């Protein structure tokens, strides 16, 4: 295992310490349980938008803590949902009286741990709502299964709802907005290589030099299918077609296109893939009005990309454009 670490057991704690040192003006870090909180929290009368999950997806979620996005982030161990007490601590640290909205990626662990925390916080008298993000079209959706995973769409939900909270929307409105965004966002990802979890010490799956995984998640879980490595054109088509056809996105739609690096895919390739996706969407008459290109929801040092499409309307466009000041997103 090739990593710049001291000890697999302390990676998350040491990394959070470095993050706190790097962004004193934006955030503070609580340890035991670990929580990343806006430097100025609680922000009076502003709904606290909180998210979290296993570590290893940076900048998600800690990199999105700040004005216009998250009030707090709850980082678990690498690829492991945080425990309810940590989520509870985040709720307490950011409690402004306006309530908290938990943005939860749809994984059994995240759902159960955040659910428990929300129950506990309700007992304390805080109004807490949860919204589950499940945008991954690679996973068949069914009430008999765990359902779709939450992936790239999560970043967009956090930005948009964070903007709504900042403009003063109340908890009901924030919750409604979050559900609306979840209903309009779809994603799919692929990988060329596997990530290596520090405490495991070997790659999460084995992939031959000429293979790729299509329909991959962000936790090193294998994808839906292992197929021969093909051209960028073909890769983008294999991600984009199911995304477009799922909602479906149609001729004349205005969209936000989010081209995400899974971690180790260089920007050179990422922009290349983004250009292809823009071309293919144009061919379908789908109009890309906003873009996000970069490593925003990653899987340690995994090589690969994901594509996320969000159907825009005037309100969502305005919320997207609203100022944001976090370590990873800023305008």
């Amino acid at each position: 295992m090739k990593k710049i670490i001291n000890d697999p057991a302390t990676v998350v704690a040491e990394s959070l310490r470095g993050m706190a040192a790097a962004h004193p003006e934006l955030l503070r870090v609580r340890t035991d349980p670990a929580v990343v909180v806006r430097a100025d929290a609680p922000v009076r009368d502003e709904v606290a938008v909180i998210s979290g999950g296993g570590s290893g997806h940076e900048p998600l979620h800690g990199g999105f803590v700040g004005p216009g996005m998250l009030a707090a982030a709850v980082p678990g161990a690498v690829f492991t949902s945080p425990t309810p007490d940590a989520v509870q601590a985040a709720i307490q640290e950011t409690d402004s009286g306006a309530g908290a909205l938990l943005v939860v990626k749809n994984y059994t662990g995240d759902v159960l741990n955040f659910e428990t925390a929300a129950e506990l916080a309700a007992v304390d008298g805080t109004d807490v709502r949860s919204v589950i993000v499940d945008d991954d079209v690679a996973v068949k959706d069914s009430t008999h299964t765990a359902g779709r995973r939450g992936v790239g769409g999560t970043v967009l939900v956090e930005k948009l709802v964070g903007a709504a909270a900042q403009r003063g929307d109340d908890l009901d409105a924030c919750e409604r907005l979050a559900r609306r965004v979840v209903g309009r966002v779809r994603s799919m990802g692929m990988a060329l290589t596997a990530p290596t979890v520090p405490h495991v010490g070997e790659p999460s799956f084995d992939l031959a030099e000429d293979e790729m995984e299509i329909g991959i998640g962000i936790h090193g879980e294998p994808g839906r299918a292992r197929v021969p490595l093909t051209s960028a054109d073909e890769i983008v088509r294999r991600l984009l077609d199911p995304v477009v056809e799922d909602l479906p996105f149609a001729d004349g739609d205005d969209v936000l296109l989010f081209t995400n690096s899974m971690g180790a895919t260089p920007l050179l390739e990422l922009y290349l893939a983004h250009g292809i996706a823009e071309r293919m969407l144009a061919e379908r008459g789908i109009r890309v009005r906003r873009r996000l290109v970069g490593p925003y929801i990653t899987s340690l040092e995994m090589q690969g990309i994901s594509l996320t499409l969000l159907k825009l309307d005037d309100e969502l466009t305005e919320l997207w454009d609203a100022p944001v000041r976090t370590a990873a997103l800023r305008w």
Partner: protein
Amino acid sequence: MGCTAHDVIVALRSAAAVVAEHRDELIRLDRAIGDADHGENMDRGFRAVVAKVDTAAPETPGAVLKLTATVLISTVGGASGPLYGTAFLRAAAAVSDVTELDGPTVAKALRAGMEGVIARGRAATGDKTMVDALAPAVEAAKSAAEAGEGPAKVLSVAADAAHQGAQATEPLVARKGRASYLGERSAGHIDPGARSTALILSAIAETARSRQ
């Protein structure tokens, strides 16, 4: 003849030792169809349980189980944390404040634990989860208790049934948890949570046997 709080603590220590010993195996199982953390999660959690029961010294079996539940919930994380936590919490409620567990109480506690897992995780048998180890264990325990067996025997048939149940998850296609994302590709691997359930039950049964 029954299990005291001290017996339960010894059994949990032994469970922690077995989980530590099988940490890498559980990681390997989870690597195949999940995210390779189940062994790490369980090991972290049971280490914390051992540390906590040592200092807190709870006085009834129910108190030990409840403490175990809270420690697991706040240290394991992932899917298994809340599920195992709920299982121990419900088991604690089921044994109430009795000071020694007899066969029927052990069987009842096991059933309550399973029901808690199902209530939280909504998995049915055959979904390739820890429920596939728990369900046959609960049935076997019930029969043994009804046949008048003591806690050691009840636990030992439960553990055996859990092992068979875990083994039987191998050909299944997962419908719950992270393995469900793989669809058909999840077949051909034992479910890590079912395996850890069987391992923990064995360790507890083994302790009960040696102390009876």
